[in-house]
């Protein structure tokens, strides 16, 4: 954008006109690569599924889809921040387990006689954020690849959840108000979705209007240059993982509320939705590209695909295969134009 402005600056009115249309065209091409292509795919899917099963297009199903979208939508905000800087966070399922289990054991439940109210939220969220913080510090300070650290954190989180669960009975929510909250409707949309939309807005603000968000993009584009320009690269890296951990904790709480009982596997399968969603949305795994809205559209696309396949009567066994195939085609489509004899692909 700025470069376009530069080119326009010194020229006369005639030149500006020509250049203006060129930049319009460029803007359109840029847009078509991301959201427009995604939106087209979404429309096609919705039309096809509506033909296959009329129930797909009903209001109830829309509410159902939005209900299912909310947890991965929260997660994808954190994941996008991390992927934009060229790292990867595999720990979301573990963090969800730890935070979700902590929250339910401190809220009105069938096992412990403790009800900390809002403090339960705070403690669970802090736990999620600390796990993210731990990942970030070990990654940025000890220079261990984020892939391995977050793999470790995944299991640490899962381990915490398993230890909290112990050998006792399944903790179920006893508070009707809490259990019903996610499905409750405001303005026709489920509360869970409103929460996710709020998080998405928060993510948009961070990534577009703060030094942190801009810095993460710069790190993903070219880390040595970002470092040499005096950016606090390590602080940004740790910040991104801390936010991802915090949102992982929130997603864990929401998923636990949706289920109505505590489970160590509360996050099972989310990694398979969130990372393909970010990639389909055009967030390149190499970093420096993509955006919140695109990732969010990616999540909606995958959940609609899943929902539509179920309504069309496809065996759930095929779900991971279908997602795997989509991920495969998406990354190949993204990487195809950038192939080259000398390109290093790891």
């Amino acid at each position, binding site marked *: 954008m700025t470069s376009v402005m530069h080119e326009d600056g010194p020229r006369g009115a005639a030149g500006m006109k020509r250049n203006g249309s060129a930049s319009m065209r460029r803007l359109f091409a840029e847009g078509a690569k991301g959201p427009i292509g995604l939106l087209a795919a979404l429309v096609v899917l919705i039309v096809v599924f509506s033909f296959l099963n009329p129930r797909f297009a009903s209001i109830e199903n829309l509410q159902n889809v939005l209900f299912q979208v909310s947890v991965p939508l929260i997660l994808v905000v954190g994941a996008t921040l991390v992927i934009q800087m060229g790292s990867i966070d595999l720990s979301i399922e573990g963090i969800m387990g730890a935070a979700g289990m902590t929250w339910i054991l401190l809220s009105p439940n069938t096992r412990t006689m403790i009800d900390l109210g809002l403090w339960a939220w705070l403690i669970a969220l802090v736990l999620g954020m600390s796990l993210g913080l731990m990942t970030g510090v070990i990654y940025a300070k000890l220079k261990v690849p984020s892939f391995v650290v977050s793999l470790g954190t995944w299991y640490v989180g899962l381990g915490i959840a398993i*230890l909290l669960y112990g050998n006792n009975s399944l903790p179920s929510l006893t508070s009707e108000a809490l259990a019903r909250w996610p499905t409750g409707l405001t303005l026709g949309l489920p509360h869970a979705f409103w929460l996710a939309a709020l998080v998405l807005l928060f993510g948009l603000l961070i990534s577009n209007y703060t030094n942190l968000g801009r810095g993460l993009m710069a790190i993903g584009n070219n880390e040595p240059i970002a470092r040499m320009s005096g950016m606090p690269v390590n602080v940004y890296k740790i910040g991104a993982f801390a936010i991802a951990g915090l949102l992982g904790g929130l997603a864990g709480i929401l998923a636990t509320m949706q289920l109505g009982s505590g489970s160590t596997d509360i996050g099972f399968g989310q990694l398979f939705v969130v990372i393909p969603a970010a990639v389909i949305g055009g967030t390149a795994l190499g970093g420096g590209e993509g955006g919140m809205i695109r990732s969010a559209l990616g999540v909606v696309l995958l959940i609609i695909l899943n929902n539509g396949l179920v309504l069309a009567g496809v065996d759930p066994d095929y779900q991971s295969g279908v997602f795997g195939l989509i991920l495969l085609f998406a990354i190949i489509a993204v990487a195809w134009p950038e192939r080259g004899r000398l390109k290093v692909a790891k």
Partner: protein
Amino acid sequence: MTYRSGTPANVEALDRPDKVAATLVRLRRMVSWHVIAPPLVFFAILLVVGIANPAYLGPFGISIATTSAAPILLVALGQAMVLNTGSIDLSNAAIALFGAIIFALTIPDAGIVAMIAVLIVLTLIGAVNGAILAYTQVPSFALTLGTLGILQTAALVTSGSETIYVSENRDLVTALHTIKVLSVPLTFWIGVFAAIFFWALLRFTIIGQNMTAVGKNESGAILSAVPNKQAKIIAFAISGFASGLAGLAIVAQAGSASASGLGSNLLLPGIAAALVGGTSISGGQANPINVVFGALTVAFVPIAAQALGFGAQAQSLVYGIFIIVIVALTTSRTRGAVIK
């Protein structure tokens, strides 16, 4: 900095006879952390287990540890070969499980022919992974995450989500588990022989050297006309083959296979074993023989955790911390290098 430390030492080294310098370099490489750490870590953990529960050091303990280490070792060997080229294979455990299921489906009818045919098919699946990586230049981690999903579905569909028991020819497979040499089952010995074979491949053959070169510096390798695509395809094919052997070990141990049964949780232990075995996650460094120690260490972790009084429930937590600590200790750090 570079001025002061670089000049005098280098001049001296140049003055020395080549042989002495070469020996020194070799010595330094021999005692380098990557090479001695894996056996050290293993013996440390063995010591812990031995003090807490001496029974584990007897024949019975050895047979338990090596039995549970066998599939981990086989998966880890393939992973180490892939990591050595600078990529990662997240689908190898799924290949092993899918392999176990088709072994269990075909061995009753076709016996040894089925074993060989299935191993070839799984090697080809690995090679396809490698070919997609080499020709489309996508990140291996995302690519194999995709194939992981497809293979999971394949495993569920071929098994009909049920446990497949090997009815006929059962002894043929389970012999690999029941026949023990020095109280170590054949499945583990297969892993040891594979490790020696892969070590020789990396050390003495051009194909192996090419793989290491691609892992150390891919741009440099490409500019030196190293066939980088071939190296990647072969590395992933090896991973598919080794995962196939792991699948065989699973069937031998259980006498059955299912999509959620024994061996459904091999991915992380496999990566951990490769890393604990001194394989660098950024490529260019792998010693398959050390991976044997890595696999034994990883198989011993739950036993050690229990011996130290952590319950079975702490296993995930211990695994997670263990991986982070080991990689933090063994990862190589270069000043200014970009870590992703």
